[in-house]
C-alpha cells in the first residue's frame, strides 16, 4: 500500500554517503532508500551503526558527504519546519528555567513571525498537543521537575504542535515508564493516519516487532528494509548485531 506507484516519496536517499566532515571513515555508505507518506519505520542496529547520523542528515544538521537526499522532492535542509527531530535525552539541558507549556509552544515558532506573540490558534494547538501526550496537567511545571517519561512526552507534544510531515525520534523509549511508552505508541499510530512519515530509532527489538509496520536494519549500510515480520529474521539480526543477536 505504501509503495503505491502514484505516491511520491517523502524522503528519498540515493547513493548517499553519510558521516562527519572531519572523520575519515563514513558512517553510512551508499544508502539508497525511499520513505513514503504514512510510513511508520523502526530503525534498529547496534551502537554506532548510523541511526542518529541518518536522522541528522535528513533534518539537515550535518551536511551530506556524497549522493542525494531529498525531502518532499527538495534538497534536505531547505525545509523550514516540516521535519521535526527529537534528539536523544542527553542532548537537552534539563536545568533550564522553562515550563512544559513554553517548551511545547516552541513547536509553533517556525510558523509565528518573530515580532508576533503566539495567537489564540497557537495556544489551542499547544493545549491539544499537551492533552494528546497526557501532560496538560503539568503545563506550568518547570521541565526539570518532570520525570524522564514526562519529559519525553513533552518533547513529542512539541513535535505534534509543529504539525510536521516527517517526525524523527532518536531513542524515545530508552528509560521511560510503560505508560509513556504506550502514549507514544498510540500517538505514532494517529500520526500515520495523518500521513506523517515517522522514523524511530530504538534498541527495544520486542517493541519493534509488536508495534511497527516497517523496520530498517542498519549497520553502516542497509542490512534489510521492509515489513517488520519479513525483515526481522534471525539471519538479518545476526548480520546486524553479530553472534549474540537477540531472538524475538
Amino acid at each position: 500500500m505504501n509503495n503505491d506507484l502514484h505516491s511520491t516519496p517523502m524522503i528519498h536517499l540515493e547513493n548517499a554517503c553519510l558521516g562527519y566532515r572531519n572523520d575519515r571513515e563514513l558512517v553510512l555508505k551508499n544508502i539508497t532508500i525511499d520513505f513514503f507518506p504514512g510510513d511508520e519505520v523502526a530503525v534498529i542496529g547496534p551502537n554506532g551503526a548510523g541511526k542518529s547520523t541518518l536522522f541528522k542528515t535528513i533534518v539537515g544538521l550535518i551536511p551530506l558527504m556524497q549522493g542525494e537526499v531529498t525531502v518532499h522532492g527538495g534538497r534536505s535542509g531547505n525545509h523550514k519546519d516540516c521535519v521535526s527531530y527529537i534528539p536523544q535525552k542527553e542532548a537537552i539541558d534539563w536545568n533550564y528555567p522553562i515550563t512544559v507549556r513554553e517548551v511545547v509552544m516552541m513547536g509553533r515558532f517556525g510558523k509565528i513571525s518573530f515580532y508576533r506573540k503566539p495567537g489564540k490558534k497557537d495556544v489551542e494547538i499547544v493545549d491539544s498537543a499537551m492533552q494528546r501526550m497526557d501532560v496538560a496537567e503539568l503545563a506550568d511545571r518547570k521541565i526539570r521537575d518532570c520525570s524522564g517519561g514526562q519529559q519525553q512526552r513533552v518533547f513529542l507534544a512539541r513535535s505534534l504542535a509543529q504539525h510536521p510531515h516527517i517526525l524523527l525520534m532518536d531513542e524515545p523509549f530508552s528509560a521511560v515508564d510503560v505508560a509513556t511508552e504506550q502514549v507514544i505508541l498510540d500517538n505514532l499510530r494517529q500520526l500515520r493516519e495523518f500521513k506523517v512519515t515517522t522514523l524511530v530509532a530504538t534498541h527495544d527489538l520486542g517493541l519493534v516487532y509488536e508495534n511497527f509496520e516497517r523496520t530498517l536494519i542498519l549497520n553502516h549500510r542497509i542490512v534489510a528494509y521492509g515489513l517488520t515480520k519479513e525483515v526481522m529474521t534471525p539471519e538479518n539480526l545476526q548480520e546486524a548485531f553479530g553472534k549474540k543477536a537477540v531472538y524475538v
Partner: protein
Amino acid sequence: MNLLFEPFQYDFLLRSFAAAIMVGIVCSIVGCYIVVQSMAFLGDALSHAVLPGVAIAYLTGGSLTFGALVAAVIVALGISFLSDEEEIKEDTAIGIFFTAALALGVALISTIQTYAIDLTHILFGNVLGVTVADLQFIVGVGLLVLLAVFFFYRFFLVVTFDPVMAKTLKWNVRLIRSMLLVLIACTITISINTVGASLVTAMLITPAATALMLTKKLWQTMLTAAVFGALSGFFGLYLSYFADISSGASIVLVSTLFFIVVYLRKKFFNGRSGLTKRG
C-alpha cells in the same frame, strides 16, 4: 536620620547610584543567559579581554571605555568564530582568546612608564568617579542591550535551551550566538566603571543564580535577577559610602549575601518559599 540620607545630597553620588543600579540590572538580566548555559568562564574571560583595548586607548589618548568596548566585541566574535570549528570546543576557544587578549593587555601596559591610576580603575572600578558622559554611555548602551534582549527573546530562548531545534527551524544559530556574545561584551564594558573588570563576573553570575532558585520561566528569572542586581548596586554603594570600602567589592558582597540567604531559605524551607515546587 539625616546622616542616612547624606549620600543623596551630592550630585556625583546620585550619578554613582544611577550607574550602580543600571549596571546591576543589565548585568543580572544578561547574566541569566550565562548561568543557564553554565558559561561562567565566558563572562570572566570577556571581562579580562577588555584590557588590550583599554591599554591601546590609553596609549593613543582615546576613550578607555570605547577601547574596552571594541576589544570585548572583537574577542566575543573571535570566540564565536573559533568555536564553530568542529575540533575546537567553545570553552577551549574562550581559553585561547581570553589568555591571548590578557597577555596582549599586560604587554601593552608594561610599556607604559608611569603606571596610571586610570588602569587600576578599569580593574577594580571607580563608581564615585562616574562623569555625566560616563553615565550617558552606561544608560545608553544598557538600554540598547535590554531592548535587544526584549526584541530577540524568542531567538535567544531557543538557541540557549535547544540549539538543535533552532537549527532544524533553519535559524542562523551562529549569528544569534554571536549577537548574544556581543550583548555580553557590551554589558561588561558598561560595568567596568562601576565594579571593575575583575569583579564583573560576579554581577553577571550571582544575581542570576539567585533568581534561578526562585523562578520557573526565563523571563521571571530575568526580572527577579534584575531586582537583586538593582538592590545589590544600591545597597552595595550605600554601604561602601559609610564603611569606606571599595564600591565594586561592596556591591559584589551584597549580591553574594542575597545568594546565601536565598540558598539557605531554599535548602531549609524547601517548598514553602519561592515560586518553584520540586516534583
